Protein backbone atom coordinates (compact mmCIF):
# COMPACT_ATOMS: atom_id res chain seq x y z
CA UNK A 1 0.00 0.00 0.00
CA UNK A 2 1.44 3.35 -1.02
CA UNK A 3 1.01 6.54 0.88
CA UNK A 4 -1.14 8.03 -1.87
CA UNK A 5 -3.57 5.14 -1.84
CA UNK A 6 -7.08 6.62 -1.95
CA UNK A 7 -8.25 4.00 0.53
CA UNK A 8 -6.07 5.47 3.26
CA UNK A 9 -8.06 7.84 5.40
CA UNK A 10 -5.84 10.45 6.99
CA UNK A 11 -7.03 11.58 10.39
CA UNK A 12 -5.77 14.49 12.41
CA UNK A 13 -5.53 14.42 16.16
CA UNK A 14 -8.28 16.40 17.83
CA UNK A 15 -6.96 19.79 18.92
CA UNK A 16 -6.34 20.09 22.62
CA UNK A 17 -8.10 22.85 24.50
CA UNK A 18 -6.27 25.22 26.80
CA UNK A 19 -6.93 22.97 29.79
CA UNK A 20 -5.43 20.02 27.92
CA UNK A 21 -2.36 21.98 26.90
CA UNK A 22 -1.92 23.34 30.42
CA UNK A 23 -1.71 19.68 31.47
CA UNK A 24 -2.81 20.53 35.00
CA UNK A 25 -6.38 19.17 34.81
CA UNK A 26 -5.00 15.88 33.52
CA UNK A 27 -2.47 15.79 36.35
CA UNK A 28 -5.26 16.25 38.88
CA UNK A 29 -7.41 13.68 37.10
CA UNK A 30 -4.66 11.07 37.16
CA UNK A 31 -3.85 11.65 40.81
CA UNK A 32 -7.52 11.50 41.80
CA UNK A 33 -7.99 8.18 40.05
CA UNK A 34 -4.97 6.55 41.66
CA UNK A 35 -5.77 7.98 45.08
CA UNK A 36 -9.32 6.67 44.86
CA UNK A 37 -8.05 3.20 43.98
CA UNK A 38 -5.45 3.41 46.76
CA UNK A 39 -8.23 3.35 49.35
CA UNK A 40 -10.83 1.33 47.48
CA UNK A 41 -11.89 -2.20 48.37
CA UNK A 42 -9.35 -4.81 47.29
CA UNK A 43 -10.35 -7.61 44.95
CA UNK A 44 -7.61 -10.06 45.99
CA UNK A 45 -8.82 -13.36 47.41
CA UNK A 46 -6.28 -14.78 49.86
CA UNK A 47 -6.44 -18.23 48.35
CA UNK A 48 -5.61 -20.98 50.81
CA UNK A 49 -7.43 -19.24 53.67
CA UNK A 50 -10.28 -17.92 51.60
CA UNK A 51 -11.95 -20.13 48.98
CA UNK A 52 -12.67 -18.29 45.77
CA UNK A 53 -16.26 -17.75 44.71
CA UNK A 54 -17.56 -18.83 41.31
CA UNK A 55 -20.22 -17.17 39.26
CA UNK A 56 -22.01 -20.50 38.72
CA UNK A 57 -20.21 -23.59 40.02
CA UNK A 58 -22.59 -25.84 38.08
CA UNK A 59 -21.04 -24.83 34.77
CA UNK A 60 -17.45 -24.69 36.01
CA UNK A 61 -15.15 -27.22 34.33
CA UNK A 62 -13.02 -28.73 37.07
CA UNK A 63 -12.23 -32.31 38.13
CA UNK A 64 -14.47 -35.03 36.67
CA UNK A 65 -16.81 -37.21 38.64
CA UNK A 66 -18.74 -40.37 37.80
CA UNK A 67 -22.33 -40.11 38.95
CA UNK A 68 -24.18 -42.81 40.81
CA UNK A 69 -27.79 -43.76 40.26
CA UNK A 70 -30.44 -44.13 43.00
CA UNK A 71 -29.11 -47.57 44.00
CA UNK A 72 -25.56 -46.31 44.34
CA UNK A 73 -24.31 -48.03 41.19
CA UNK A 74 -22.21 -46.26 38.63
CA UNK A 75 -24.48 -44.63 36.02
CA UNK A 76 -22.09 -45.18 33.15
CA UNK A 77 -23.20 -47.65 30.47
CA UNK A 78 -19.73 -47.97 28.86
CA UNK A 79 -20.89 -46.60 25.51
CA UNK A 80 -17.45 -45.03 24.83
CA UNK A 81 -19.02 -41.79 23.56
CA UNK A 82 -16.98 -39.72 26.02
CA UNK A 83 -13.76 -41.49 25.11
CA UNK A 84 -14.54 -40.88 21.42
CA UNK A 85 -15.38 -37.24 21.97
CA UNK A 86 -12.30 -36.58 24.08
CA UNK A 87 -9.81 -34.52 22.05
CA UNK A 88 -6.98 -35.31 24.44
CA UNK A 89 -7.58 -39.09 24.49
CA UNK A 90 -7.39 -39.14 28.25
CA UNK A 91 -10.34 -41.48 28.97
CA UNK A 92 -9.73 -45.21 29.04
CA UNK A 93 -12.75 -47.48 29.52
CA UNK A 94 -12.95 -51.24 29.77
CA UNK A 95 -16.57 -52.17 29.21
CA UNK A 96 -17.93 -55.60 30.18
CA UNK A 97 -21.36 -57.17 30.21
CA UNK A 98 -23.54 -55.68 32.89
CA UNK A 99 -24.69 -57.81 35.83
CA UNK A 100 -27.80 -55.62 36.08
CA UNK A 101 -30.91 -56.03 33.92
CA UNK A 102 -31.40 -52.33 33.09
CA UNK A 103 -28.37 -52.01 30.79
CA UNK A 104 -26.21 -54.15 28.56
CA UNK A 105 -22.75 -52.98 29.56
CA UNK A 106 -21.04 -51.27 32.43
CA UNK A 107 -17.43 -50.08 32.90
CA UNK A 108 -15.27 -52.57 34.64
CA UNK A 109 -12.58 -49.93 34.67
CA UNK A 110 -12.94 -46.23 33.94
CA UNK A 111 -9.70 -44.28 34.04
CA UNK A 112 -9.13 -40.57 33.34
CA UNK A 113 -5.63 -39.20 33.09
CA UNK A 114 -6.16 -35.79 34.69
CA UNK A 115 -2.74 -34.66 33.47
CA UNK A 116 -3.71 -35.18 29.84
CA UNK A 117 -7.21 -33.79 30.24
CA UNK A 118 -7.70 -30.28 28.88
CA UNK A 119 -10.95 -29.73 30.78
CA UNK A 120 -12.93 -28.91 27.65
CA UNK A 121 -16.12 -30.56 28.90
CA UNK A 122 -16.73 -32.53 25.68
CA UNK A 123 -17.14 -35.79 27.63
CA UNK A 124 -19.89 -34.21 29.67
CA UNK A 125 -21.56 -33.00 26.45
CA UNK A 126 -21.30 -36.41 24.82
CA UNK A 127 -22.58 -38.55 27.67
CA UNK A 128 -26.11 -39.84 26.87
CA UNK A 129 -26.92 -40.82 30.47
CA UNK A 130 -25.26 -37.89 32.28
CA UNK A 131 -22.86 -40.24 34.00
CA UNK A 132 -19.70 -38.11 33.64
CA UNK A 133 -19.75 -34.52 34.81
CA UNK A 134 -17.22 -31.82 35.55
CA UNK A 135 -17.29 -30.44 39.08
CA UNK A 136 -16.08 -27.10 40.38
CA UNK A 137 -13.09 -28.63 42.19
CA UNK A 138 -10.18 -26.73 40.69
CA UNK A 139 -7.24 -27.20 43.08
CA UNK A 140 -6.20 -30.58 41.79
CA UNK A 141 -2.77 -31.60 43.04
CA UNK A 142 -0.72 -34.73 43.30
CA UNK A 143 2.78 -35.82 44.20
CA UNK A 144 3.32 -38.11 41.22
CA UNK A 145 2.00 -38.75 37.75
CA UNK A 146 0.44 -42.02 38.91
CA UNK A 147 -1.52 -40.19 41.55
CA UNK A 148 -3.12 -38.00 38.89
CA UNK A 149 -4.56 -40.95 36.97
CA UNK A 150 -8.06 -41.23 38.41
CA UNK A 151 -9.74 -44.64 38.35
CA UNK A 152 -13.39 -45.49 38.76
CA UNK A 153 -13.36 -45.55 42.56
CA UNK A 154 -11.65 -42.21 42.76
CA UNK A 155 -14.11 -40.65 40.30
CA UNK A 156 -17.04 -42.09 42.23
CA UNK A 157 -15.60 -40.69 45.44
CA UNK A 158 -15.44 -37.28 43.80
CA UNK A 159 -19.16 -37.69 43.21
CA UNK A 160 -19.75 -38.57 46.86
CA UNK A 161 -17.78 -35.53 47.84
CA UNK A 162 -19.59 -33.05 45.61
CA UNK A 163 -23.11 -34.45 45.17
CA UNK A 164 -24.68 -32.23 47.83
CA UNK A 165 -23.13 -29.00 46.63
CA UNK A 166 -23.62 -29.73 42.95
CA UNK A 167 -26.67 -31.85 42.16
CA UNK A 168 -26.71 -34.01 39.03
CA UNK A 169 -27.95 -32.50 35.83
CA UNK A 170 -30.46 -35.31 35.21
CA UNK A 171 -32.15 -34.92 38.60
CA UNK A 172 -32.38 -31.15 38.52
CA UNK A 173 -32.63 -30.20 34.88
CA UNK A 174 -29.62 -28.11 35.68
CA UNK A 175 -29.59 -26.12 32.48
CA UNK A 176 -32.53 -24.23 33.92
CA UNK A 177 -31.73 -24.31 37.60
CA UNK A 178 -30.42 -21.28 39.44
CA UNK A 179 -27.06 -21.77 41.13
CA UNK A 180 -27.18 -22.42 44.85
CA UNK A 181 -27.04 -19.00 46.50
CA UNK A 182 -23.64 -17.83 47.68
CA UNK A 183 -22.03 -21.21 47.30
CA UNK A 184 -18.29 -21.53 47.07
CA UNK A 185 -17.06 -24.90 45.94
Amino acid at each position, binding site marked *: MKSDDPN*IKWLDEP*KLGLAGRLYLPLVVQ*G*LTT*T*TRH*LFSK*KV*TQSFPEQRPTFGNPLIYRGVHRLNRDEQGRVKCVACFLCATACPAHCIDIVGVESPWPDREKYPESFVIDELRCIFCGMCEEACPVDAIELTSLFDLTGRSREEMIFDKEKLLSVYDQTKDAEPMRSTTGRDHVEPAPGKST
Partner: protein
Amino acid sequence: MVPITVEALIKIAIFLFVMMTAAAYLVLLERWMCAWIQDRKGPNRVGVPLTKIKLFGLGQPLADGLKMILKQEYTPAHVDKVLFTLAPIVILAAALATFAVIPMGSILPADVAFGYLDRPVEMIVAPSVDVGMLYVFALSSLAVYGVILGGWASNNKYGFIGALRSSAQLIAYELPLGLGILGVVLVANSLEPEKIIREQASTGLWFAFAQPLGFLVFLVAAFAEAARLPFDLPEAEQELVGGYHTEYSGIRLLLFLIAEFLHMVTASFLIVILFFGGWHLWGLTGANVTDVTWFQSIARVGVLTVKVLLLILFFMLVRWSWPRFRFDQLMTLAWKVMLPLGLVNLVVVAVTQEYHASIIAALEGLGGQFTLTACIWLVSILSCIAIAIIAPRSGDNRPRFYQLPLRGQA
Protein backbone atom coordinates in the same frame (compact mmCIF):
# COMPACT_ATOMS: atom_id res chain seq x y z
CA MET B 1 37.35 13.75 73.23
CA VAL B 2 36.21 12.07 70.07
CA PRO B 3 38.20 13.23 67.08
CA ILE B 4 36.17 14.64 64.21
CA THR B 5 37.23 11.78 61.93
CA VAL B 6 35.77 9.19 64.26
CA GLU B 7 32.61 11.24 64.57
CA ALA B 8 32.27 11.32 60.78
CA LEU B 9 32.94 7.58 60.52
CA ILE B 10 30.21 6.83 63.06
CA LYS B 11 27.81 9.03 61.12
CA ILE B 12 28.73 7.30 57.86
CA ALA B 13 28.09 3.90 59.43
CA ILE B 14 24.68 5.00 60.73
CA PHE B 15 23.71 6.62 57.44
CA LEU B 16 24.79 3.62 55.37
CA PHE B 17 22.78 1.30 57.56
CA VAL B 18 19.73 3.56 57.54
CA MET B 19 19.88 4.17 53.80
CA MET B 20 20.29 0.51 52.85
CA THR B 21 17.46 -0.56 55.16
CA ALA B 22 15.32 2.30 53.95
CA ALA B 23 15.94 1.35 50.32
CA ALA B 24 14.93 -2.26 51.05
CA TYR B 25 11.75 -1.22 52.80
CA LEU B 26 10.96 1.39 50.17
CA VAL B 27 10.90 -1.42 47.63
CA LEU B 28 8.28 -3.13 49.79
CA LEU B 29 6.38 0.16 50.10
CA GLU B 30 6.52 0.59 46.35
CA ARG B 31 5.14 -2.92 45.82
CA TRP B 32 2.37 -2.22 48.32
CA MET B 33 1.48 1.08 46.67
CA CYS B 34 1.47 -0.62 43.29
CA ALA B 35 -0.82 -3.35 44.60
CA TRP B 36 -3.19 -1.02 46.41
CA ILE B 37 -3.58 1.24 43.40
CA GLN B 38 -4.37 -1.80 41.29
CA ASP B 39 -6.92 -2.95 43.92
CA ARG B 40 -4.70 -5.80 45.09
CA LYS B 41 -3.40 -6.52 48.57
CA GLY B 42 0.29 -6.73 47.77
CA PRO B 43 2.99 -8.81 49.47
CA ASN B 44 1.62 -9.88 52.86
CA ARG B 45 2.93 -13.41 53.38
CA VAL B 46 6.60 -13.22 54.33
CA GLY B 47 7.12 -12.53 58.02
CA VAL B 48 9.65 -13.70 60.56
CA PRO B 49 11.87 -16.38 58.95
CA LEU B 50 11.30 -20.01 59.99
CA THR B 51 8.07 -19.17 61.80
CA LYS B 52 4.50 -18.81 60.68
CA ILE B 53 4.27 -15.21 61.85
CA LYS B 54 3.26 -13.15 58.84
CA LEU B 55 3.64 -9.62 60.18
CA PHE B 56 1.88 -7.99 57.18
CA GLY B 57 4.68 -9.09 54.86
CA LEU B 58 7.38 -7.06 56.58
CA GLY B 59 9.89 -9.85 56.00
CA GLN B 60 9.60 -9.37 52.26
CA PRO B 61 12.71 -7.17 51.82
CA LEU B 62 14.83 -9.88 53.44
CA ALA B 63 13.39 -12.49 51.09
CA ASP B 64 13.86 -10.21 48.08
CA GLY B 65 17.44 -9.45 49.02
CA LEU B 66 18.28 -13.10 49.68
CA LYS B 67 16.74 -14.09 46.37
CA MET B 68 18.83 -11.52 44.51
CA ILE B 69 22.04 -12.53 46.29
CA LEU B 70 21.49 -16.26 45.80
CA LYS B 71 20.76 -15.91 42.09
CA GLN B 72 23.38 -16.92 39.61
CA GLU B 73 25.91 -14.18 39.02
CA TYR B 74 26.03 -14.52 35.26
CA THR B 75 28.49 -12.65 33.10
CA PRO B 76 27.71 -13.02 29.41
CA ALA B 77 30.66 -13.94 27.20
CA HIS B 78 30.33 -10.88 24.98
CA VAL B 79 30.63 -8.19 27.65
CA ASP B 80 33.55 -6.03 28.69
CA LYS B 81 34.10 -7.76 32.02
CA VAL B 82 35.87 -4.97 33.89
CA LEU B 83 33.42 -2.24 32.97
CA PHE B 84 30.51 -4.63 33.39
CA THR B 85 31.42 -5.08 37.05
CA LEU B 86 32.50 -1.49 37.54
CA ALA B 87 29.25 0.11 36.36
CA PRO B 88 26.96 -0.89 39.25
CA ILE B 89 29.70 -0.02 41.75
CA VAL B 90 30.11 3.44 40.23
CA ILE B 91 26.41 4.16 40.24
CA LEU B 92 25.85 2.95 43.81
CA ALA B 93 28.94 4.74 45.11
CA ALA B 94 27.80 7.99 43.52
CA ALA B 95 24.28 7.56 44.88
CA LEU B 96 25.55 6.89 48.40
CA ALA B 97 28.20 9.61 48.37
CA THR B 98 25.50 12.19 47.64
CA PHE B 99 24.20 11.77 51.17
CA ALA B 100 27.42 13.18 52.62
CA VAL B 101 26.10 16.74 52.39
CA ILE B 102 22.41 16.04 52.92
CA PRO B 103 21.29 16.81 56.48
CA MET B 104 19.13 14.17 58.14
CA GLY B 105 17.97 16.61 60.78
CA SER B 106 19.30 19.77 62.26
CA ILE B 107 21.66 19.50 65.19
CA LEU B 108 21.93 17.57 68.44
CA PRO B 109 22.65 19.47 71.67
CA ALA B 110 26.21 19.24 72.99
CA ASP B 111 25.33 16.85 75.83
CA VAL B 112 24.45 14.11 73.34
CA ALA B 113 27.87 12.43 73.63
CA PHE B 114 27.78 12.31 77.46
CA GLY B 115 30.97 14.25 77.88
CA TYR B 116 32.92 12.75 75.02
CA LEU B 117 32.18 15.78 72.87
CA ASP B 118 32.33 19.43 73.74
CA ARG B 119 30.40 20.57 70.70
CA PRO B 120 26.87 20.05 69.37
CA VAL B 121 26.61 17.24 66.81
CA GLU B 122 25.41 18.28 63.39
CA MET B 123 23.29 15.57 61.79
CA ILE B 124 25.18 15.53 58.54
CA VAL B 125 28.26 13.59 57.52
CA ALA B 126 30.12 16.58 56.13
CA PRO B 127 28.91 19.67 57.97
CA SER B 128 29.37 23.19 56.61
CA VAL B 129 30.27 22.28 53.05
CA ASP B 130 29.89 25.61 51.25
CA VAL B 131 29.39 23.99 47.87
CA GLY B 132 26.89 21.40 49.11
CA MET B 133 24.37 21.67 46.29
CA LEU B 134 27.16 21.77 43.73
CA TYR B 135 28.55 18.55 45.20
CA VAL B 136 25.14 16.89 44.95
CA PHE B 137 24.85 17.98 41.34
CA ALA B 138 28.30 16.76 40.43
CA LEU B 139 27.59 13.34 41.93
CA SER B 140 24.16 13.02 40.40
CA SER B 141 25.77 13.73 37.03
CA LEU B 142 28.30 11.05 37.84
CA ALA B 143 25.45 8.56 38.15
CA VAL B 144 24.93 8.76 34.42
CA TYR B 145 28.44 7.34 33.99
CA GLY B 146 27.32 4.20 35.77
CA VAL B 147 24.34 3.94 33.45
CA ILE B 148 26.38 4.51 30.30
CA LEU B 149 29.13 2.14 31.43
CA GLY B 150 26.53 -0.51 32.18
CA GLY B 151 24.82 -0.07 28.84
CA TRP B 152 28.08 0.05 26.88
CA ALA B 153 29.80 -2.83 28.63
CA SER B 154 26.72 -5.03 28.19
CA ASN B 155 27.36 -5.06 24.44
CA ASN B 156 23.63 -5.33 23.97
CA LYS B 157 21.48 -3.11 21.79
CA TYR B 158 18.75 -2.67 24.39
CA GLY B 159 21.28 -1.85 27.04
CA PHE B 160 22.99 0.62 24.79
CA ILE B 161 19.80 2.36 23.68
CA GLY B 162 18.79 2.61 27.32
CA ALA B 163 22.12 4.15 28.21
CA LEU B 164 21.93 6.63 25.31
CA ARG B 165 18.44 7.66 26.27
CA SER B 166 19.52 8.05 29.85
CA SER B 167 22.43 10.29 28.99
CA ALA B 168 20.34 12.48 26.68
CA GLN B 169 17.59 12.73 29.26
CA LEU B 170 19.88 13.54 32.16
CA ILE B 171 21.75 16.20 30.21
CA ALA B 172 18.48 17.78 29.08
CA TYR B 173 17.02 17.88 32.57
CA GLU B 174 20.17 19.10 34.31
CA LEU B 175 19.31 22.53 32.92
CA PRO B 176 15.83 22.96 34.42
CA LEU B 177 17.16 21.34 37.59
CA GLY B 178 19.90 23.94 37.80
CA LEU B 179 17.50 26.78 36.97
CA GLY B 180 15.14 25.62 39.68
CA ILE B 181 17.96 25.65 42.20
CA LEU B 182 19.34 29.02 41.06
CA GLY B 183 16.32 30.93 42.37
CA VAL B 184 16.66 29.28 45.76
CA VAL B 185 20.39 29.93 45.91
CA LEU B 186 19.87 33.59 44.98
CA VAL B 187 17.52 34.12 47.88
CA ALA B 188 19.30 31.94 50.41
CA ASN B 189 22.66 33.40 49.42
CA SER B 190 24.37 30.05 49.87
CA LEU B 191 24.84 26.66 48.28
CA GLU B 192 24.92 24.97 51.66
CA PRO B 193 21.79 22.87 52.36
CA GLU B 194 21.74 23.77 56.04
CA LYS B 195 21.85 27.50 55.27
CA ILE B 196 19.07 27.15 52.70
CA ILE B 197 16.90 25.48 55.35
CA ARG B 198 17.86 28.14 57.89
CA GLU B 199 16.80 30.88 55.49
CA GLN B 200 13.36 29.29 55.10
CA ALA B 201 13.08 28.71 58.84
CA SER B 202 13.95 32.29 59.69
CA THR B 203 11.44 33.84 57.28
CA GLY B 204 8.88 31.07 57.78
CA LEU B 205 8.14 31.21 54.05
CA TRP B 206 9.09 28.00 52.29
CA PHE B 207 10.53 28.44 48.82
CA ALA B 208 7.79 26.28 47.32
CA PHE B 209 5.40 29.12 48.16
CA ALA B 210 7.80 31.95 47.44
CA GLN B 211 8.87 30.55 44.04
CA PRO B 212 6.09 28.29 42.76
CA LEU B 213 7.47 28.27 39.25
CA GLY B 214 10.93 27.27 40.40
CA PHE B 215 9.39 24.51 42.48
CA LEU B 216 7.39 23.21 39.53
CA VAL B 217 10.43 23.16 37.27
CA PHE B 218 12.60 21.51 39.89
CA LEU B 219 9.96 18.90 40.73
CA VAL B 220 9.55 17.82 37.12
CA ALA B 221 13.29 17.81 36.55
CA ALA B 222 13.84 15.78 39.73
CA PHE B 223 11.43 13.15 38.47
CA ALA B 224 13.37 13.01 35.21
CA GLU B 225 16.73 12.90 36.98
CA ALA B 226 15.59 10.01 39.15
CA ALA B 227 14.34 8.32 35.93
CA ARG B 228 10.99 7.65 37.54
CA LEU B 229 7.77 7.33 35.63
CA PRO B 230 6.58 9.24 33.63
CA PHE B 231 10.24 9.77 32.66
CA ASP B 232 11.59 6.23 32.90
CA LEU B 233 12.63 6.09 29.25
CA PRO B 234 16.09 4.60 30.05
CA GLU B 235 14.49 1.35 31.16
CA ALA B 236 11.15 1.38 29.41
CA GLU B 237 10.35 -2.31 29.83
CA GLN B 238 7.94 -2.47 26.93
CA GLU B 239 10.53 -1.18 24.49
CA LEU B 240 13.95 -2.01 25.90
CA VAL B 241 13.49 -5.21 27.95
CA GLY B 242 15.39 -3.86 30.95
CA GLY B 243 17.18 -0.86 29.49
CA TYR B 244 20.76 -0.47 30.60
CA HIS B 245 20.56 -3.39 33.05
CA THR B 246 19.17 -5.91 30.59
CA GLU B 247 22.23 -8.14 30.86
CA TYR B 248 22.60 -7.89 34.62
CA SER B 249 21.62 -10.43 37.22
CA GLY B 250 22.28 -11.24 40.86
CA ILE B 251 24.05 -8.82 43.14
CA ARG B 252 25.09 -6.46 40.36
CA LEU B 253 21.45 -6.00 39.36
CA LEU B 254 20.64 -5.48 43.03
CA LEU B 255 23.20 -2.66 43.18
CA PHE B 256 21.57 -0.98 40.19
CA LEU B 257 18.12 -1.26 41.72
CA ILE B 258 19.25 0.07 45.09
CA ALA B 259 20.99 2.98 43.36
CA GLU B 260 17.78 3.79 41.50
CA PHE B 261 15.84 3.88 44.74
CA LEU B 262 18.51 6.00 46.37
CA HIS B 263 18.19 8.47 43.50
CA MET B 264 14.53 8.81 44.34
CA VAL B 265 15.34 9.28 48.03
CA THR B 266 17.98 11.88 47.16
CA ALA B 267 15.53 13.72 44.94
CA SER B 268 12.96 13.71 47.75
CA PHE B 269 15.51 15.04 50.21
CA LEU B 270 16.57 17.78 47.80
CA ILE B 271 12.99 18.87 47.15
CA VAL B 272 12.24 18.96 50.86
CA ILE B 273 15.44 20.83 51.70
CA LEU B 274 15.20 23.34 48.88
CA PHE B 275 11.49 23.97 48.71
CA PHE B 276 9.69 22.61 51.77
CA GLY B 277 11.81 24.09 54.53
CA GLY B 278 13.80 20.97 55.43
CA TRP B 279 13.30 20.31 59.14
CA HIS B 280 11.24 23.47 59.65
CA LEU B 281 7.59 23.37 60.64
CA TRP B 282 5.81 26.46 61.90
CA GLY B 283 5.40 26.56 65.67
CA LEU B 284 6.99 23.17 66.34
CA THR B 285 10.67 23.13 65.53
CA GLY B 286 11.71 26.73 66.14
CA ALA B 287 14.14 28.59 63.93
CA ASN B 288 17.11 28.82 66.24
CA VAL B 289 20.15 26.95 65.00
CA THR B 290 22.96 27.38 67.48
CA ASP B 291 20.97 26.58 70.60
CA VAL B 292 18.30 23.90 70.41
CA THR B 293 16.44 21.92 73.04
CA TRP B 294 16.28 18.14 72.91
CA PHE B 295 12.62 18.30 71.95
CA GLN B 296 13.28 20.65 69.05
CA SER B 297 16.19 18.54 67.89
CA ILE B 298 14.13 15.35 67.74
CA ALA B 299 11.09 17.14 66.32
CA ARG B 300 13.25 18.41 63.48
CA VAL B 301 14.40 14.89 62.58
CA GLY B 302 10.79 13.74 62.71
CA VAL B 303 9.51 16.60 60.56
CA LEU B 304 12.21 16.10 57.95
CA THR B 305 11.60 12.35 57.82
CA VAL B 306 7.85 12.74 57.50
CA LYS B 307 8.23 15.30 54.75
CA VAL B 308 10.63 13.10 52.81
CA LEU B 309 8.38 10.09 53.28
CA LEU B 310 5.36 12.01 52.01
CA LEU B 311 7.33 13.07 48.98
CA ILE B 312 8.43 9.49 48.30
CA LEU B 313 4.79 8.44 48.53
CA PHE B 314 4.02 11.14 45.98
CA PHE B 315 6.76 9.79 43.71
CA MET B 316 5.18 6.34 43.94
CA LEU B 317 1.65 7.64 43.42
CA VAL B 318 2.76 9.51 40.32
CA ARG B 319 4.35 6.36 38.96
CA TRP B 320 0.95 4.68 38.65
CA SER B 321 -0.96 7.79 37.59
CA TRP B 322 0.39 8.73 34.19
CA PRO B 323 1.75 6.97 31.15
CA ARG B 324 5.33 7.39 30.01
CA PHE B 325 6.32 10.27 27.75
CA ARG B 326 7.43 9.60 24.22
CA PHE B 327 11.07 10.51 23.79
CA ASP B 328 10.48 13.57 21.59
CA GLN B 329 7.82 14.77 24.03
CA LEU B 330 10.30 14.32 26.84
CA MET B 331 12.82 16.49 25.03
CA THR B 332 10.26 19.14 24.07
CA LEU B 333 9.11 19.31 27.66
CA ALA B 334 12.67 19.90 28.83
CA TRP B 335 13.83 22.39 26.22
CA LYS B 336 10.66 24.22 25.25
CA VAL B 337 8.61 24.22 28.44
CA MET B 338 10.80 23.73 31.48
CA LEU B 339 13.71 25.86 30.29
CA PRO B 340 11.63 29.02 29.55
CA LEU B 341 9.66 28.57 32.76
CA GLY B 342 12.89 28.23 34.72
CA LEU B 343 14.26 31.39 33.09
CA VAL B 344 11.09 33.31 33.94
CA ASN B 345 11.43 32.15 37.53
CA LEU B 346 15.05 33.20 37.62
CA VAL B 347 14.25 36.70 36.32
CA VAL B 348 11.36 37.15 38.74
CA VAL B 349 13.42 36.02 41.70
CA ALA B 350 16.41 38.13 40.68
CA VAL B 351 14.28 41.26 40.27
CA THR B 352 12.44 40.84 43.57
CA GLN B 353 15.70 40.07 45.33
CA GLU B 354 17.49 43.10 43.92
CA TYR B 355 14.69 45.58 44.62
CA HIS B 356 13.25 43.74 47.62
CA ALA B 357 13.42 46.66 50.08
CA SER B 358 11.89 49.20 47.73
CA ILE B 359 9.16 46.80 46.58
CA ILE B 360 8.19 46.03 50.17
CA ALA B 361 8.21 49.76 50.93
CA ALA B 362 6.04 50.51 47.90
CA LEU B 363 3.57 47.77 48.86
CA GLU B 364 3.54 48.87 52.50
CA GLY B 365 -0.15 49.74 52.52
CA LEU B 366 -1.09 46.50 50.73
CA GLY B 367 0.49 44.00 53.08
CA GLY B 368 4.11 44.03 51.91
CA GLN B 369 5.51 40.52 51.66
CA PHE B 370 2.09 38.90 51.20
CA THR B 371 1.23 41.05 48.18
CA LEU B 372 4.67 40.44 46.73
CA THR B 373 4.19 36.67 47.00
CA ALA B 374 0.74 36.97 45.45
CA CYS B 375 2.25 38.91 42.55
CA ILE B 376 4.88 36.22 42.04
CA TRP B 377 2.15 33.56 41.99
CA LEU B 378 0.23 35.62 39.43
CA VAL B 379 3.28 35.90 37.19
CA SER B 380 3.91 32.18 37.54
CA ILE B 381 0.36 31.21 36.61
CA LEU B 382 0.34 33.66 33.70
CA SER B 383 3.60 32.30 32.32
CA CYS B 384 2.27 28.74 32.60
CA ILE B 385 -0.83 29.76 30.66
CA ALA B 386 1.33 31.57 28.11
CA ILE B 387 3.37 28.39 27.58
CA ALA B 388 0.13 26.44 27.23
CA ILE B 389 -1.16 28.87 24.60
CA ILE B 390 2.08 28.80 22.62
CA ALA B 391 1.97 25.03 23.09
CA PRO B 392 5.37 23.94 21.85
CA ARG B 393 4.52 20.38 22.80
CA SER B 394 1.67 19.92 20.35
CA GLY B 395 4.04 19.42 17.44
CA ASP B 396 3.10 16.72 14.99
CA ASN B 397 5.88 14.56 13.61
CA ARG B 398 3.82 11.86 11.96
CA PRO B 399 4.51 11.01 8.31
CA ARG B 400 2.61 13.35 6.03
CA PHE B 401 0.80 12.55 2.81
CA TYR B 402 1.98 14.74 -0.04
CA GLN B 403 0.46 14.44 -3.49
CA LEU B 404 3.42 13.42 -5.64
CA PRO B 405 3.16 13.87 -9.40
CA LEU B 406 2.54 10.49 -10.96
CA ARG B 407 5.16 9.15 -13.34
CA GLY B 408 4.56 10.32 -16.92
CA GLN B 409 2.26 13.16 -15.93
CA ALA B 410 4.92 15.65 -14.96
